[in-house]
C-alpha cells in the first residue's frame, strides 16, 4: 500500500478521500459510481453486438394494430320510376297506381324521378371511387411505414456499427498506448552494461575462442618458437635464393575480393618508391583505433615474447611476436576467424597479415613479402577484408612490418 502524501498531524479527511478516489480512478480508468457499474453490468449487450442481428417487429406490430381495409358504407338511395309509388301495402299501392294519372294532371314527376335516379347513380360511383382511393392511400401508408421501418432499422444498425468501430478504435488506441508505455518502461529499465555483455552471442563466442587460443599460444610458445625459428631460417634461405624473382606473385596470395584493393596499394607505394620518399610521408594518416592497436602490439612485442625470442636465438622482435607475426597469425587463423573475416567483421577480420602484406608492399624493400616463396606460408583469406586493405599502412612506423635485415 503506497503511503499518502498528506503528512501532518492535522489530516484533512476530504483530502485523503480525494487521494483515495483518484487512486481508484487510476486503477479503474473511469470514475463510475457503484450504481453506474451495476447499471452497466446489467445491460444485456448481446442484442447489440451484431448489428446484422437487429430485428424489429415494428412492422408486425403496425400490421397487427391496423385492421384490414374495408371500404366505408356510404349512405345512398336507389331511385327508380316506381320508387315514389311503392308501398308494402297492396291496396295502397293499387290506389296510388290508380290515381297516378290524376297526379300527372297536376305536374310531371318524371324529371324529378330521373334526376333523383341520376343522383343515386352518381352517389354510388363516387362512393366506389372514394373507396378505391382510400384503399390506395392505405396501401401507401403501409408502404411508407415499411420504408420508415427499414430506415430506422438501418440507422440503428449503422449506429451500432459506428459504436463497434469506435470501441475497436478505443481498444486499439489503448493497446497502442499500453505498448508505448511498456516500451518506455523497458527503455527506462535498461541499465548500462559493459561492451562485452552487449556483444552478440557470436561475438562473445569468438572472444572466448580468441582467449582460449591465446592461452594455448602462451602454453605452446616455447615449442612454437623453436618451430618458427626453424621455419624462418628456412624461409630466409629460400628468400635469399628467390630474391630476384618479380613481385607479380602478390595477387596470388590474396583472395579474389581483395584483389583490387591490394592492387591499388602497390601503385601508391610504387609511386612513393619511385620518388624515393618514404611511403609513410605520403600515406594517409591512420585512425586513432589503428594507432592504438599498433601501439598495443608494439608493447606486446617489447614484452616477454620478444625478450624470450632474443634470449633464445637473437631474432628480431617480430620473429617472436605471439600475435602480430604474419606467419604465425595466418597459420593460426581458425575457421571461425576466417568466416568472420569473410563476413566482413572488421575487428575479427583485421588480423596482422594484412598489415604485414600491405606494409611489405608499401615499403620499397618489402618486395620479398610478395615473394612466391611466401605463398605457402598460410591461407591469405583474412587479408582480403576490403576495409583493411583500403587503409594504407605506415610501414616505417610499424616495426612488425619492417623487413628483417
Amino acid at each position, binding site marked *: *500500500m503506497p503511503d499518502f502524501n498528506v503528512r501532518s498531524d492535522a489530516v484533512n479527511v476530504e483530502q485523503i*478521500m480525494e487521494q*483515495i478516489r483518484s487512486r*481508484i480512478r487510476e486503477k479503474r480508468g473511469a470514475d463510475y*459510481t*457503484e450504481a453506474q457499474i451495476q447499471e452497466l453490468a446489467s445491460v444485456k449487450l448481446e442484442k447489440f453486438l451484431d448489428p446484422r442481428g437487429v430485428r424489429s417487429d415494428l412492422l408486425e406490430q403496425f400490421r397487427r394494430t391496423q385492421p384490414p381495409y374495408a371500404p366505408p358504407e356510404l349512405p345512398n338511395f336507389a331511385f327508380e320510376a316506381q320508387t315514389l309509388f311503392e308501398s308494402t301495402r297492396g291496396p295502397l299501392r293499387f290506389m296510388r297506381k290508380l290515381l297516378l294519372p290524376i297526379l300527372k294532371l297536376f305536374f310531371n314527376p318524371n324529371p324529378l324521378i330521373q334526376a333523383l335516379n341520376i343522383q343515386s347513380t352518381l352517389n354510388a360511383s363516387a362512393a366506389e371511387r372514394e373507396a378505391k382511393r382510400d384503399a390506395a392511400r392505405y396501401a401507401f401508408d403501409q408502404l411508407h411505414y415499411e420504408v420508415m421501418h427499414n430506415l430506422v432499422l438501418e440507422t440503428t444498425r449503422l449506429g451500432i456499427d459506428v459504436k463497434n468501430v469506435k470501441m475497436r478504435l478505443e481498444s486499439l488506441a489503448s493497446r497502442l498506448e499500453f505498448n508505448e508505455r511498456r516500451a518506455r518502461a523497458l527503455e527506462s529499465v535498461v541499465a548500462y552494461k559493459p561492451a562485452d555483455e552487449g556483444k552478440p552471442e557470436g561475438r562473445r563466442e569468438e572472444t572466448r575462442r580468441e582467449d582460449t587460443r591465446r592461452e594455448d599460444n602462451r602454453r605452446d610458445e616455447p615449442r612454437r618458437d623453436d618451430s618458427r625459428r626453424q621455419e624462418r631460417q628456412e624461409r630466409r634461405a629460400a628468400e635469399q635464393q628467390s630474391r630476384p624473382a618479380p613481385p607479380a606473385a602478390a595477387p596470388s596470395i590474396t583472395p579474389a575480393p581483395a584483389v583490387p584493393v591490394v592492387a591499388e596499394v602497390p601503385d601508391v607505394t610504387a609511386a612513393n618508391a619511385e620518388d624515393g620518399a618514404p611511403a609513410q610521408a605520403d600515406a594517409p594518416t591512420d585512425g586513432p583505433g589503428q594507432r592504438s592497436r599498433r601501439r598495443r602490439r608494439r608493447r606486446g612485442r617489447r614484452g616477454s615474447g620478444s625478450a624470450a625470442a632474443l634470449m633464445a636465438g637473437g631474432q628480431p622482435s617480430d620473429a617472436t611476436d605471439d600475435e602480430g607475426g604474419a606467419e604465425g597469425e595466418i597459420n593460426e587463423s581458425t575457421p571461425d576467424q576466417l568466416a568472420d573475416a569473410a563476413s566482413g567483421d572488421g575487428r575479427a577480420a583485421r588480423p596482422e597479415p594484412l598489415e604485414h602484406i600491405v606494409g611489405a608492399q608499401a615499403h620499397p624493400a618489402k618486395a620479398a613479402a610478395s615473394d612466391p616463396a611466401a605463398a605457402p606460408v598460410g591461407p591469405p583469406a583474412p587479408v582480403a577484408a576490403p576495409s583493411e586493405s583500403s587503409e594504407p599502412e605506415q610501414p616505417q612506423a610499424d616495426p612488425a612490418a619492417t623487413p628483417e635485415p
Partner: protein
Amino acid sequence: MKVAVVVQRYGQAINGGAELHARYIAEHLARHAQVEVWTTCATDYVTWRNALKSGEERVNNVPVRRFPVKHERDPLTFGRLSEKVFHRTHSVADELDWLEAEGPTSPGLVSHITKHAGEFDFCIFFSYRYYHAFHGARAAGTKAILVPTAERDPAAGLSIFAPIFRGVRALMYNSPEERAMIQGIAGNAHVPSVVVGVGSEIPANPQPQRFRQKYNIRGPFAVYVGRIDENKGCRELFSHFNAYLRDRVGKLTLVLIGNSILDIPAHPRIRHLGFLDDADKFDAIAASELLIMPSFFESLSMVALEAWALGKPVLANAQCDVLKGQCIRSNAGLYYESASEFAETLRAIEFNKWIAGTLGKNGRQYYRDNYDWPVIERKYLDMLQRLSSGTAPDGFEPLPGWMDRRKATCPPAAEVVAAAPGGPSSAPEMTVPRPMGPMSPPLPTRPPAATERSRPVAPPRSTQPSSGRRPQGRNRRSSQGAGAGR
C-alpha cells in the same frame, strides 16, 4: 426546575438509540433539576407489547412513570398505511391512522401529560415520529421541547409533523444535517434550536487484551457494533468486506457485536460475538483498529462517538449524511460510497498507522469538544435557561377539521424528504467552552405558574431573538445553535 422526559421506552435494558439517549439525558439532567420520566410499559419497539408493569418505579434514581399501551402494532396495517402515506398522495386522516398504527398508542400517557404538564417547567419529548411525541407535545403545549432524533427517512415528510416542528418551544438536534433537513421540510428556522447530540459513559480504562483473551481474537480487526440488520447496511457491509478479503492484501478481521436478524457470511475472518455488555463492547472498540458504521440512516451514531472517545477512527457509509458530515467536521473518520472505496479506505487506515492514529486523536478531541457530558449538559441547561427567561410562543397550529382531514392533498412523504436539503454539513459545529471546574450551578427554582406568563421579557442572552416567528425560509441556517453559541 422540574423537567419531564417523555420517551416511548425506558429502562436499563433498553438499548435503542433514542431510548438510551433519553435515559442518559434524564440521568444527567437529574443532577441539575428535578426530572421525571414518563414512558410506556413496552420494551419491544416492533410490537409495543406491554412488558413492564404500569405505575411508578426508579431507574438509576430517576423516577419513572409507565403507562400501558392500548394495542399492539399490527404489522400488516402499518405496512399498508406506510406504503400509502410514504409513496402516494394521501390525506391527513391517513397520516393520523398511520401514527395510530405505528404506536405505541398510549392514551393514558397523553392524558397524564395533559393533566400534569402544567406542574413541570418543560417536557422533553424524544423521537418525533411516535404517538407519544405527536399527541404528547400537543398536550404539553408551550412546555414541549423536542429531541427529534430524525433520520432521513420518509416519515419526516409527513405533513402532520411539520406543525409539531414549528410549534414546540425548542428543538435539540443531534446534528447539523438533521437540523437542515427538518428546517427544510417544516420551515421552523424561527424555533430556538441547538445541535446537542448525546454523550456516552466511556470507561476510563478499557481492557483490550482482556477482550482478546476472552473471545480468542488475534490480529487486527475492524468492529461493527449494533443490530445486524439489512436496514443498518450490514448486507452491503458483508458484500464490501468480502471484496476486501478477496484482495488478500489486508489482514483485518471483521468482528460483529450485536443481535443478528441477517445471515452472516461464513468466513474465518468474519466473527459474530452476539450481544455484549457495555464493558465488553468498549473493550472491543479499544482493541479494534477502527469502527465501521455501514448504516444508511442515522440521526446520531452513539457508537461512532464512543469509538472517537476511545481514540479509534471510524469508517462510515457516505450515503448517511450525518455520519459523513461528522467524519468531515471531525477529521476523524473516512467514508465510502462503493466497494472499491470501502476496500481502499480500509487499507488506508490499516496500513497507514499515522492516519489511523491522527484520525483517532482528532476523534478524541472532537468528542471532547462536542459530546462530552459537561458540554452536553451545558447546552441543555443553557437552552432551558434561555427558554425560562423568554416568552412562550403561540403554540401549535390546530389540526384540520373533519372534512379537511379527509381531503387527499398531502404529497407522498418520500418525495417531500427527497426535496429537502441533503448532504453533509461542512460548517464546524458551534461548541460551548468546556467547563473547567465543577458543573454549572443547578437551574433556578421554578417560578410560580401564575406569574410565568406575566413575567416581563428578559433581555435576550444572544444576539438572535429567542422568540417571535420569522418569515419561513429566511436565513434558516443562521439560527443554528443560537442557544449554544456564546
